[in-house]
């Protein structure tokens, strides 16, 4: 009996440890994403650290992205940052001024549907900033596209750095015409309120945007993402 029990016990222990380790999403992140993306914080605290960052931090991906967008994007990734990260590394002098040197921008790896599902699930578990998103209350509602664009562009100048349709707007920040599909509303609100609370050295300024305008911007990005290519 004892002879039988020992192998059985060993088998059970091996199975238990195997179950603990079987997290294909986390394994994928470690093997294929961690080379460029930070999966653990903190965000860069100095410019030297910021300049060394190869790709956006993912340690708060679960506070930032919408799961369904993440799963789809990982299978067919498109460029979100026209000038990449870190943007000055992808700028060259042109005849009319600075321009993005697209030859220095590498495409993002595409995953299979199964891998995208597993990686997406693992990313959505990374929630380093639950406190920041919990502080944001987004009242349901909408805004006309023209009023939203007025706030975004004329009153707050966000278009300086962000595109609101492909090829229209600034290049140093991520495009925002898909932001409504890509990002959680509370994240957008919190990031506008204080970019530095998420990423202390980021090149997006804190414009001291009022609660009312934050709400308008969140709603505008939702409207915009439903009509890609129609802005202006």
């Amino acid at each position, binding site marked *: 009996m004892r002879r039988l029990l020992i192998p059985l016990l060993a088998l059970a222990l091996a199975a238990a440890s195997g179950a603990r380790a079987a997290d294909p999403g986390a394994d994928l992140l470690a093997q294929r994403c961690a080379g460029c993306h930070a999966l653990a914080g903190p965000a860069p605290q100095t410019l030297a650290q910021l300049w060394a960052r190869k790709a956006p931090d993912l340690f708060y991906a679960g506070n930032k992205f919408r799961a369904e967008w993440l799963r789809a994007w990982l299978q067919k990734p498109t460029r979100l940052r026209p000038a990449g990260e870190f943007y000055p590394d992808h700028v060259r*002098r042109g005849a009319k001024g600075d321009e993005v040197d697209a030859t220095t921008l590498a495409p993002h790896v595409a995953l299979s549907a199964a891998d995208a599902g597993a990686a997406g699930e693992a990313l959505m578990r990374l929630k380093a900033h639950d406190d920041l998103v919990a502080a944001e209350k987004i009242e349901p509602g909408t805004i006309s596209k023209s009023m939203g664009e007025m706030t975004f562009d004329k009153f707050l100048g966000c278009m300086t*750095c962000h595109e609101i349709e492909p090829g229209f707007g600034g*290049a140093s920040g991520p495009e925002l015409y898909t932001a409504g599909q890509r990002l959680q509303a509370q994240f957008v609100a919190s990031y506008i309120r204080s970019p530095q609370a998420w990423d202390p050295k980021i090149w997006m300024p*804190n414009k001291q945007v009022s609660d009312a305008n934050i709400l308008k911007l969140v709603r505008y990005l939702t409207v915009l993402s439903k009509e890609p290519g129609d802005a202006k």
Partner: protein
Amino acid sequence: MPSKRSRIGSLGGAVLLLGCAFALAAAGNESAADNYRTYCTQCHGVDGNGKGINIRDMSVQPRDHTDAKAMSGRSDDAIFKVIKEGGPSIDKSVLMPPWGGTFSDEEIRDLVAHLRKLCKCSFGAAP
């Protein structure tokens, strides 16, 4: 056995190193050139000529920091204010954002000095 003089020398060196480390930790400031590259060149350009990668669709073009005539028309205080509080604080464009949440006052003062080097000018005295 080390001499008394060398022991005092080592102690002095250690104190000096410790002092430098504390000074750096207390300041936490980045250099003006590094701040300019990170935050300003996106609009003002890598050469400070107002031709950054963001200007294509901007309704108001950024200041050319190498333009001695235009830059000598602004006092250091006005430049400090526009960096810290943004364009509207000196009746200029909202497209120039406030950077007070990014830079310390000391870093902004260093940036003002950096701009004076770019324009090779001072207030009221264009070359």
